């Protein structure tokens, strides 16, 4: 299937992403969901705000998913990333990988999130009780 890639200001819909990767040949589905946590670097977080270079972010995600397809045969993948203000406990990113056997789904999902975090131009700003700052590395 063509991978599902969403970069959106709307709340992420895990069920819709799961439905998108479903297929009779699938034996395992791994979901990574990154959620906003109430603390970071000793600060109490109020909420996060995400910004992206959207066209390049989508292109980079597409490339990462293609690498996962080639390395682990992960043919059914959905990636969604939220932009704008995201509250504590809400999902900022969801990655769903479905494969015939579970090992490949775990490997591919881990690869996609780790690579996404370091190469895809999406930034987050932490808004804490002390102020706000864009997070670097």
């Amino acid at each position, binding site marked *: 299937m063509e991978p599902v890639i969403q970069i959106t200001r709307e709340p992420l819909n895990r069920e819709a992403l799961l439905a998108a990767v479903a297929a009779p040949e699938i034996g395992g589905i791994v979901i990574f969901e*990154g959620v906003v946590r109430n603390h970071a670097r000793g600060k109490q977080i109020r909420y996060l705000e995400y*910004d*992206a*270079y959207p*066209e*390049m972010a989508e*292109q980079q995600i597409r490339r990462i998913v293609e690498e996962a397809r080639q390395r682990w045969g992960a043919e059914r993948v959905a990636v969604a990333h939220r932009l704008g203000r995201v509250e504590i406990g809400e999902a900022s990113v969801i990655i769903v990988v479905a494969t015939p056997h579970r090992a490949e789904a775990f490997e591919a999902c881990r690869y996609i999130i*780790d690579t996404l*975090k*370091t*190469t*895809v*131009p*999406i*930034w*987050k*700003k932490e808004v804490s009780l002390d102020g706000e700052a*864009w*997070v*670097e*590395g």
Partner: protein
Amino acid sequence: MKIRVRYFAGLREIVGQDAETLTVPEGTDVAGARALLSARHSRLQPILERSLCAVNREYVPADRVLQEDDELVFIPPLGGGAA
């Protein structure tokens, strides 16, 4: 020649705009454009120094020579987050 510069995240907040057009001499590379922007917006300089560069949505080295109508974006270090 003219190139288009787009700003995101912290850069956009510093510059106060999403994009601008920059007129540069033929043969200007990314580093040259970065120097012009640092001169125009002095508060940008430190963050531009630690940013990666993208031209037309691809990461490029700073010695990449620019062409008319290129879209230049500086990519500040990404948040990443501990694994």
